[in-house]
């Protein structure tokens, strides 16, 4: 089946959507009940001359401001009209987003919240301490907790990710799929970390596949494909994955320090 045909068939699928509830009244009622609401403004206020003068002044100010922050604009203003985003003076690449934000790792969260949200123990590598940023990723149907660490001595900035180290923990097993994801150019070395079977993948970028405790194998096909990765099939059922620009000994040492 050709790609065009498939898309056309998909678009022609008659989908039985559940009926859309009318929420407008409920929304308005909730907003009306808010105590801090200002008095209603007359509907036609914007038709007055004064309002137009003010609007033109505001527009001019907005244009001037836009021009002033032009370098950071594309990074900051895209769809980020809400949330905890601030425009800061500085270089265009100034990190206004959380560490690892562009890596599609799920939703930023805290260590405590991530621990409360997943059914498996989330451990922290004692060799590094608490992560700089935590993400909870549920896009694949079961949770993955990601830690991002800033580059620091011993943890160089990795070209693939721009962070020092990424640590993923999830329920699953890297065996036996690991062989499949390691394509030509990737070397696979089997080793032990704290007695648990582990795999060191180095060389060419590769994907990440694993078998969750229930269900079918998953292939995590993010834009970024990892270069150097350590996978540990831990005896507690957690698959631990370290990704960074590390040597094997450092990765092994960090993995073995999980508490």
């Amino acid at each position, binding site marked *: *089946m050709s*790609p065009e045909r*498939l*898309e056309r*068939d*998909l*678009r*022609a*699928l*008659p*989908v*039985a*959507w*559940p009926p*859309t*509830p*009318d*929420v*407008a*009244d*409920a*929304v*308005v009622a*909730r*907003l*009306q009940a808010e105590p801090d*609401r*200002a008095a*209603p*403004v007359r*509907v036609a*206020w*914007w038709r007055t001359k004064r309002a137009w003068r003010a609007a033109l002044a505001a527009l001019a100010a907005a244009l001037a401001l836009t021009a002033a922050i032009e370098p950071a604009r594309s990074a900051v*203003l895209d*769809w980020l*009209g*809400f949330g905890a985003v601030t425009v800061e003076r500085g270089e265009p690449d100034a990190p206004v987003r959380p560490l690892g934000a*562009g890596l*599609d790792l799920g*939703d930023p969260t805290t260590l405590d919240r991530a621990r409360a*949200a997943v059914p498996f123990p989330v451990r922290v590598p004692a060799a590094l301490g608490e992560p700089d940023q935590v993400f*909870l990723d*549920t*896009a*694949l*149907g*079961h949770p993955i907790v990601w830690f991002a660490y800033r580059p620091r001595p011993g943890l160089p900035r990795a070209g693939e990710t721009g962070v020092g180290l990424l640590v993923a923990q999830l329920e699953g097993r890297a065996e036996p799929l690991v062989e499949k994801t390691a394509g030509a150019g990737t070397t696979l070395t089997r080793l032990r970390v704290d007695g648990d079977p582990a795999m060191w993948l180095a060389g060419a970028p590769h994907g990440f596949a694993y078998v969750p405790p229930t269900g079918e194998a*998953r292939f995590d*096909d993010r*834009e970024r494909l990892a270069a150097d990765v350590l996978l540990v099939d831990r005896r507690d059922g957690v698959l631990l994955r370290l990704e960074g620009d590390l040597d094997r000994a450092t990765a092994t040492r960090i993995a073995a320090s999980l508490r």
Partner: protein
Amino acid sequence: MRRPDSEPELVERARARDLAAFGEIVRTHQEIAFRTAVLICGDPHEAEEAVQDAFVKAYRALPRFTAGRPLRPWLLAIVANEARNRRRAAGRRTRLALQVAEQVPTGEHAPAPPGTEPERAALATERRAALAAALERLPERDRTVIALRCLLDLSEAETAAALGVRRGTVKSRLSRALDRLREEVGDDVA
């Protein structure tokens, strides 16, 4: 007779805390918002609550909405975020909570396939069923991007806003998801 306000006018009025204007905005966008939420959180009741909460939050956030930008992607980003939060809070595995209609409908949503004699219609129904079944078997991530883009007909920018990713990511994710869907369908339909 006064013509209905255009969307920028409604937004302007809503920003000035005109709740009637905001109510109109809600009515205009609630269907697409609700369907997006259903796709993400997988449950119509959760989706309804997510949509309500999202519109309340959107109203509060309106002062920070960049005037002149399209409103729909901005709203969908808020809706999708609420829907995701609910899915997480419920801790359930999401599924595509949709049934593909079994009959060839006569409604406005489904254009009749070319050549509508009974045999071809039956074949089309079979193919649709196979396609729906294959879609069901895909990982959630693939299903969602296909559903947002092809079933709900969101634009690339709107899909990106709903998924919280870049447009380029939508493009590549969709293309890979369609590849996998094609493989799945291949097992069912010769």
